């Protein structure tokens, strides 16, 4: 049985600079997996590579492979990854469309969906029940939202694309603690409904409590991996990422 997502010896470059030096990892269906590491370790780079986003913002794959259900993604276009594979990315910095209203941001994400209007309607309901604030502000220009609300919108937008696998790039960034717990509760709920989650976090403590398994990445290489409890007890990981 092949893994849902499998990365094999992936090497990627930005221009001439190699950012990942051959990393391997996998995610099974229904799992929550986290990728932790310091700034510049290659976490976002990994997610952008999986989403097949084009250079120059995203890296170029030079070696290795990214498999989804056993099929290589290297020749895929980024829009097809979302539209056909239902693999969504909530990117670093949220990247919501500030010149559109909250509602328009969500509607835009339904662009490539081929299912029925009823399915779309159900997803609006789900997003608004997970994040009631978005419903309150649905007519508002999304630029004017607070950072936390923008983060909710970014996640909501991914859900509106009818993804069944969501990759999140530091969703806790800039969130007040209370909002952050709300966010993670929402993600946990999604996971219970069958959503596969690959999560990037700088807050390793939080991430490992939340995830089933984790990988620790450092300067473009995987330096530790295992189920969350194991990693939390690993003295090296403790020292470097969990504050002793």
């Amino acid at each position: 049985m092949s893994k849902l997502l499998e990365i094999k010896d992936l090497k990627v470059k930005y221009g001439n600079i190699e950012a990942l030096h051959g990393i391997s990892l996998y995610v099974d269906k229904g799992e929550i997996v986290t990728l932790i590491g310091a700034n510049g370790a290659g976490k976002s780079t990994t997610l952008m590579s999986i989403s097949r986003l084009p250079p120059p913002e995203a890296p170029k794959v030079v070696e290795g492979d990214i498999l989804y259900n056993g099929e290589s993604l290297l020749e895929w276009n980024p829009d097809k990854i979302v539209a056909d594979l239902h693999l969504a990315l909530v990117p670093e910095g949220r990247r919501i469309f500030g010149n559109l209203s909250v509602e328009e941001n969500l509607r835009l994400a339904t662009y490539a969906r081929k299912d029925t209007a009823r399915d779309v309607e159900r997803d609006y309901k789900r997003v608004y029940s997970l994040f009631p604030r978005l419903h309150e502000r649905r007519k508002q220009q999304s630029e004017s939202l607070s950072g936390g609300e923008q983060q909710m919108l970014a996640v909501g937008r991914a859900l509106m694309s009818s993804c069944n696998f969501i990759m999140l790039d530091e969703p806790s960034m800039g969130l007040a603690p209370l909002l952050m717990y709300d966010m993670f509760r929402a993600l946990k709920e999604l996971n219970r409904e069958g959503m596969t989650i690959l999560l990037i976090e700088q807050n390793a403590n939080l991430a490992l409590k939340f995830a089933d398994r984790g990988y620790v990445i450092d300067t473009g290489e995987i330096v530790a991996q295992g189920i969350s409890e194991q990693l939390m007890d690993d003295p090296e990981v403790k020292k470097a990422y969990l504050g002793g």
Partner: protein
Amino acid sequence: MEALFQNIINALQWGSFYALIALGYTLVYGVLLLINFAHGDIFMVGAYIAFGVSVFVLGTQGLGLPNWAILACGVPLTMILTAGVGVTLERIAYRPLRRKGAHRLYVVITALMCGLILENGNLALLGASRKKFPELMEKAVWTFGNVSVTNLKVIVIVAAFATFAFLNFIVTRTRIGMAMRAVSYDKFAIPLMGIPVDSVIVFTFVLGSGFAGLAGMLFAMSYPILEPYMGALIGWKAFIAAVVGGIGDIRGAFVGGFLLGFIEILVVAFFPSTFRDLIAFSILLLILWIKPTGLFGVARHQKI
């Protein structure tokens, strides 16, 4: 009083041409932040395509259809073919640069060159002799007191308003319109919504160039002499109109186009006609001086 009404009608007609062309500038700018300097020449090509379609395909030297049929088929055919020219430019000139991540300045220079290529390509291909556009519509003149309106003027004005209403609907109400606005804000995040960026861009060029084709056909019917450089000055003026209106905003292009039309006609009503462009552009300069982002433009700011 009657002179005033007559002037208003003329201003509306010229404003309509400026507005139709300015809409194309503003659409492409709104999506790609690219000033498509070839757009005035796409308008010129549109006029020539209208000529070719009306004479050699549908008209006397082609199928020999009656005038009403030439008009009915010629307008959509001209718009489609002109849209094809715009899309071709995007494909062979702008897209390769975009792929390589070229700085916007180089893309703008490429657009300028494309315009010159269209002008001079036309000159080389069809020669310097001017073309006479056939009369496709019997001219009807309606007079109210001393004010006279031709049916063609009414059509031009109605076409401009209808085009604006149509584009405004597309941009503000449809998903592809949202995608167009979203591309201008953040191209990077577009594929994450499952949207191929290129198809949004191609659609934008189809709209902009298609309506430049419509403008070309209407212009050729109103002023039936075609020459390769006919798009240059009117293109510049429409571009400036779009900037004064607030480039990137289609209301701005529409209002800017009519504003320029009115200023020009009113200047000529009170001053010698040689003063027209001098005074018109001075007024526009003054508007930009007071509001540099244009009438409808807003300064961009992003939340960190």
